[in-house]
């Protein structure tokens, strides 16, 4: 099958769709083949593990930034001359908090690195889908890249690279989530129309475009947030004000767009999509609350909210524990939103793909693709 043929399936052209349709039907109708080509369970296990490690890693990294502890360990890849793993436990644990989290971030990142290596190895060994192997390879590459970026940030003592590091971290998380999602049993088992239940429906161009736009704006929002967060000493007041205003405006946009996205994507009736859509609304709502709280704990009660009596006499506490947690939660939930939006986009594609395959099945009278019949 050539690239062009596959491309056409997304535009629902008969030939391409027929070709794909036949393809996805094949294993379902041949138990021997599907047995040999089982999804890689281990890849799923390790992807889920990666997801469960990278999100905390983002918390810890966010904590490093929130506490301005990025330069608590001046060297890299070592820690104060020690090999990363040989840095004395007692000095680490009993040392200053800044050193504790910075070194901890590095340790956790190395664990993630190892998990990513295992993921890739397992994928090569047992995963039948080439693009999934490629995805796990991408995860590994991004994890390594992110680690190096972290090191560069330390060696150059450079806040711009800290900002880029902060913008790439969430992408690593997103990729891990995608990998975990496409290796799920339900993803593997759902093969579209089986000839009995309702045929799967695509989501339509509008929904797909909307989902992609949402994803892009969610990332734009993250980049804007990173600029606000990593403000430089000589950043002008105008620039900062613009960034904050844009960040808040995009937040309002995302908050309004999330329910629309749910409405558009749920039309196809796919439960996964509906669930993801509801999750997205919840995360974005939470994020807006966290964003406002972040502003309050860092810059005090804003004037626009002065009509609310709550904040009068509010005292900003620099690097208080609760305050740091609020700010870092805002960072971490940003990644969740991005991942959630990416999953929706991917699920939309998959839904369209299933639907496209399904049409060809409906076209063939037996409900089974010609080749296997």
């Amino acid at each position, binding site marked *: 099958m050539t690239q062009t043929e*596959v491309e056409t399936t997304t535009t629902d052209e008969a030939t391409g769709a027929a070709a794909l349709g036949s*393809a996805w039907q094949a294993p379902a109708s041949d138990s021997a083949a*599907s047995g040999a080509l089982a999804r890689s369970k281990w890849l799923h296990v390790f992807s889920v593990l990666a997801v469960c490690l990278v999100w905390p890693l983002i918390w810890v990294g966010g904590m490093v930034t929130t506490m301005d502890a990025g330069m608590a360990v001046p060297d890299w890849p070592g820690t104060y001359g020690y090999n990363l793993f040989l840095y004395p436990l007692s000095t680490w644990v009993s040392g*200053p908090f800044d050193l504790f989290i910075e070194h901890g971030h590095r340790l956790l990142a190395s664990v993630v690195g190892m998990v990513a290596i295992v993921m890739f190895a397992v994928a090569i060994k047992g995963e039948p889908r080439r693009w999934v192997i490629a995805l796990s390879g991408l995860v590994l590459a991004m994890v390594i890249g992110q680690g190096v970026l972290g090191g560069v940030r330390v060696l150059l003592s450079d*806040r*711009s690279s800290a900002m880029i590091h902060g913008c790439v971290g969430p992408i690593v998380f997103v990729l891990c989530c995608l990998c975990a999602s496409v290796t799920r049993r339900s993803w593997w088992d759902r093969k579209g129309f089986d000839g009995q239940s309702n045929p799967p429906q695509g989501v339509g161009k509008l929904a797909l475009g909307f989902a*992609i736009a949402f994803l892009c704006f969610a*990332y734009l929002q993250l980049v804007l947030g990173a600029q606000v967060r990593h403000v430089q000493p000589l950043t002008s007041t105008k620039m900062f004000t613009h960034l904050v205003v844009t960040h808040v405006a995009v937040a309002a946009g995302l908050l309004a767009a999330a329910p629309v996205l749910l409405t558009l994507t749920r039309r196809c009736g796919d439960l996964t999509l509906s669930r993801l859509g509801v999750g997205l609304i919840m995360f974005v709502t939470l994020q807006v609350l966290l964003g406002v709280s972040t502003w309050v704990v860092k810059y*005090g009660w804003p004037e626009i909210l002065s009509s609310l009596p709550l904040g009068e006499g509010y005292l900003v506490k620099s*690097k208080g524990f609760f305050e740091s947690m609020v700010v870092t939660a805002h960072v971490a939930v940003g990644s969740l939103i991005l991942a959630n939006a990416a999953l929706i986009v991917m699920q939309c594609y998959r839904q369209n793909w299933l639907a496209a395959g399904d049409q060809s099945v409906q076209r063939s009278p037996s409900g089974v693709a010609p080749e296997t019949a």
Partner: protein
Amino acid sequence: MRLVQHSIIGYDFTMNRIHFLRPIGGLMAWAAVLMSGCDAPVEQYPPNAVHALVVHHRTDLPTEAAAQEVTQLIDQWFGTPLEPHWPAELLSGQAAKGLVDQDRLLRAPGSFYSDQDNLHYGLYTEHCVRCHGVNGGGNGAASALQNPYPRDFRAGIFKWKSTQRSARPTKDDLRRLMVHGAPGTSMPSFSRLSDDDLDVLVDYVIYLSVRGELERWLLYGAVEEIGYGDEPVEDPFRFGLVSIDNATGDRASEAALYAAEHLKRIVDQWGQSAEVAVPGASSDPASGSSVDADSVARGKELFHGQVANCAGCHGVDGVGGVNIVDYDDWSKEYSTRLGITPTDRQALEPFEALGALRPRLALPRELAGGYAHGGADAVTLYRRITQGIAGTPMPAVMLSETPSATALTPDQVWDLVHYVESLLETK
């Protein structure tokens, strides 16, 4: 075999299936462009360009040459953010020489990092710069979104202190402010910092303030007194030729002597601040015992009375609501005092382009159920009432030993204090 192959492809989205990743790639590239090249270390303190323009407006004379020369002198004497310097060589007396500790100074500006002993460097960059700005001008990146604006240290005017209205705060005052913050403003509490770190920051605030105040004086002096025009003046009066070595002794030029004298005066104001504490503030007659209701009632009367007329600004019963259009001294400097209406956006534009913040109304605090920004204990309130609040429209009441039509006695002020205490919320 054919089947198997189909199966693989069947589950294979092929790479085009993840082409939704492409927008992310595009955005990343875009982000990289946006972020590149904005992290050069700060090598120079930005000059006080707003003040140069203010001087220009006040004198109608060109200030460019003067500004350039003054910047050279200031950089010579005070160093750069990479290597700040306390010009102890030019000062006499231990108090003045030791007002700012050179070693501490080095730990304030520059990029921040910390070591295994938790000794922090770049403390000012880490904690303060986003609000107070590199040169302490109060116009850091985040400043425009705050009310009140962060303090511009360069004018030498401070609100929350134990000293008289026009005096500098003591080191203890600055330290207390940093530990407690200013509730109700964005000025944070830095109670997590070690004593050592606080000392560094206190010294650095003083350093920035002295540096900034000297810069302001010299700018004005160069144009108004020394006669800088389009060109720098001739040698003995040239600031640009003054270094730290030729500023004292026989070799000192006129310009050096002029600048050193101003430096000495400014530093002395800081050194002597403890000597100008607010008189009578340490003896609250009610301290220890509970405040009696009579005193509060008398205070209430005074609050609304002719002499103090606090209600004229703070509203009947301190609930606010009085419509007063007034601004603080920092923004009056480039507006009303130059004959510019603070709301005249067009006239202010040249100042804003140079980093001045848009003037904001200095509103009297709502005292009833409100919070004091600068501390709400009785002694502090006594100071506020007898001194007013520097830099703001809040006036001082006149004091006299006997009751009169224009002044209050200390006991009456304490009555007022007790009444204000009863109004304020305490946290």
